[in-house]
């Protein structure tokens, strides 16, 4: 089930999950600075998000321009738990209401915040909230056979509407400031390097788990049907498959994965804010996947890591001109590497070995 490219990637991930903690915590001189740990953790969350999108786009042809919404919802669920975990250590020392609510004059916790002081419930909501949204949205959209760009644009409308909604202070999610100033998670101090390392390792595990799960789903009989749907939806339907059920399943599963990525992301970057819902963010996810190679899973993860790392380096190194570099990167990759980085890499390798290049299906 695990092919060669995934094997290599998982091995790399394993090395990372061992080397970074050891380098940061155990070795003298700290060859891996704490700063880098949080950064790697963030990249890994992005990678998981990209894998989630690749699952629906690469294998089922659903181009979602709203996957940022699922990511952000998962993030908000985690953020709400972290907010409650602050307790009476906020600036107003109000044990029952978070600071930002005191700030806007709310005296009591609104009902949808109930129970978020329990980690178990928050953890459940991390997958339930995005899953439910994806299920309801998909139920309507796939049943009405909304496809192609129409589907893409309404997913964009969805994330845009959510962004506007979460910007509203009356929603009770902190408005533009979002949720921030977290103190600890399950009693572990978020400022401690050990906690950061722990979260990073957790992110690596989640990414590995996500990859294996995605591989397993796409390799199964169900996965074959999904590829059929991607390549010839009408034909699949005429063969007697309930296309909308397959789509709904994979869309919901992908949204849940995105939610997990968001939940791991929030404690590592320390803030969740409505700008995560912005349409531009969701388009960026698509770009990661396209850059790495659509329908390759590992490629999606790599694409996310490469773009995010490029952003980190370029915003520091070329603060005035990094957009040129990033823009040029996108154009070049599309023109020169139509199958993405991973696709190009493997084609080159197989050509060197003299075997004919593998054919990747396109929609």
């Amino acid at each position, binding site marked *: 089930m695990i092919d060669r490219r995934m094997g290599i990637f998982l091995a790399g991930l394993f090395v990372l999950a061992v080397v970074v903690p050891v380098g940061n915590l155990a070795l003298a001189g700290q060859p891996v600075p704490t700063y880098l740990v949080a950064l790697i953790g963030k990249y890994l969350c992005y990678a998981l998000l990209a894998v989630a999108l690749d699952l629906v786009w690469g294998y089922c042809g659903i181009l979602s321009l709203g996957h940022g919404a699922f990511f952000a919802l998962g993030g908000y669920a985690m953020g709400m738990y972290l907010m409650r975990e602050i307790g009476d250590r906020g600036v107003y020392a109000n044990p029952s209401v978070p600071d930002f609510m005191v700030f806007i004059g709310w005296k009591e916790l609104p009902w949808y915040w109930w129970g978020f002081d329990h980690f178990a419930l928050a953890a459940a909501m991390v997958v339930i909230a995005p899953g439910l949204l994806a299920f309801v949205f998909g139920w*309507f959209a796939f049943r009405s056979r909304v496809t192609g760009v*129409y589907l893409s644009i309404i997913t964009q409308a969805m994330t845009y509407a959510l962004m506007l909604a979460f910007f*509203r202070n009356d929603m009770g999610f902190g408005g533009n400031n979002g949720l921030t100033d977290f103190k600890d998670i399950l009693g572990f101090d978020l400022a401690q390097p050990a906690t950061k390392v722990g979260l990073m390792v957790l992110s690596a595990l989640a990414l590995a788990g996500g990859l294996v799960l995605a591989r397993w789903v796409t390799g199964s009989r169900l996965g074959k049907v999904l590829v059929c749907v991607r390549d010839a939806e*009408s034909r699949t339907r005429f063969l007697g498959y309930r296309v909308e059920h397959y789509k709904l399943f994979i869309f919901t599963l992908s949204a849940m994965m995105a939610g997990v990525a968001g939940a791991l992301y929030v404690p590592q970057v320390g803030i969740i804010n409505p700008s995560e819902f912005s349409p531009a963010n969701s388009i960026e996810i698509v*770009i990661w996947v396209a850059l790495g190679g659509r329908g390759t899973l590992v490629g999606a993860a790599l694409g996310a890591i490469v773009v995010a790392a490029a952003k980190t380096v370029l915003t520091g190194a070329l603060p005035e*001109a990094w*957009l040129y570099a990033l823009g040029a990167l996108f*154009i070049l990759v*599309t023109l020169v590497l139509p199958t993405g980085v991973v696709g190009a890499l493997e084609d080159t390798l197989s050509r060197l070995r003299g075997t004919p290049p593998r054919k990747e299906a396109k929609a």
Partner: protein
Amino acid sequence: MTSLLRALALLLALGCAGAAAAQDFAGLIAALPGGSYADRAKVVKDLGLTGDPRALVVLRALEADDLKVLADGTPVIVNDKTGAAVAAVDGSDRGTPAADSLDRVKVNNAVRRALRSAIGMLTLRDPDPARRLAAARDALKAADPDQIEALDAALAAETDAGVAATLAEARAAAVLKSPDAAGPDQLAAIATLAARGDDAARAALTPVAASAKPDLAKAAQAALARIDEAQRFWGLAQNLWYGLSLGSVLMLAAVGLAITFGVMGVINMAHGELVMLGAYTTFVVQQVIRAEAPGLFGWSLVIAAPLAFVVAGAVGVVIERGIVRHLYGRPLETLLATWGVSLMLQQAVRSAFGPDNRDVGNPGWMSGAFHLGQMQITWNRLWILVFAFAVFAVLLMVLKRTPIGLQMRAVTQNRAMAANMGIRTGRVDALTFGLGSGIAGLAGVALSQIDNVSPNLGQNYIVDSFMVVVFGGAGNIWGTMAGAFTLGIANKFLEPFAGAVLGKILILVGIILFIQKRPRGLFAVKGRAVEA
């Protein structure tokens, strides 16, 4: 008989006032520079009530920031251009004092308000009816009981019916404010204002509705209710107009996209940046005009429009030839590449023009507003609506009536067949993309009149534009028009009830639900081409 008596009384009053004013005028002018703004406003008002034509010169100078004070405390009027000063009291020559030896007599809003009303008082008898009308309007806004006498006098002498009506309304407003006006006079005033029925009338009537005199209060409440009733209708019309205006903006922004995205199937994420280029072209044209030929400023938009079309169109052709043509058949990859283009264009503009807003001025014919009944229509919105329809009509003509339009439609319907018929599809692709881009540039010219001209301009419209095209049905420019106006009007009717934020959310949810009902948009393309 009564008018004769009134005229007599007026003569008497003027005589007395004249005598008093002769002494006062110099005193008032001397008092002008001192004291607080509130004191200065009082002096300005008194100057207006003198009726002295010399006061008008001084007040106009004060309004134009030309009234200065010499080191010895004499108020003088300084000529902007020559720097020559004359005494404010008698116009005697005071030479050309050094600019830094002069103190300004500053005005603020309170003084400016008093100035407007005082200048109004002094121009009530101006030979030009337009000036008299403006003066009467200012008096209506001021609603000052001290002005009743002067208004009465002006009313008696007024020959123009329109000006007289406004004067009567101004007098009515002043009477309502006056503590010692007679009851019947005030009731008559309420009736006069109720007939006017606009915001100015409402402003004058509202305080009376809470008056201690029951009959007055009742009459005012009844009048207000009548005004409200009438304004409800106009409110609807006004909302419809706002909706049409928003719709025209959306259509302009989206119609170029309807060509590149709807007709060619290219997801052009750089569309917003092409709009931005159009806006910056307008800016550059205006800069050149300001520097080289200020007289042409009124024509700046007319000059900018074709240039914006050419600039944005040319950039569009370059994008098509350089990038998009390698990606036909891979629509989603055009998204990736054009996103890269959009980032680079944004940064290029930021490097060239700076990150902050650029000032694009409204020519005279694009400024201000006019009234249609109780409805106010701003000129810039009206012209943008006209422009949007003009662009749409020309686009239709090009697509339906020209050879190139025929070729464009042929290539989009069946590329291979069109090529076999001898159409150079590559050239047609470039021209189609250039056309869509050029129209984006035209949209930029219009948007520069109502929105920021900054590197972020395009980003603000791209999402909305895609919504419009998809809502209307990709591939049909009539659908884009219908979509734009539906969304614009719906938005403007929701906004008063739901507020701007919630209104927009509701519109988005509405689009999502609508697409469930009609998965191919408002004007769906039917037939076998759909599945392709």
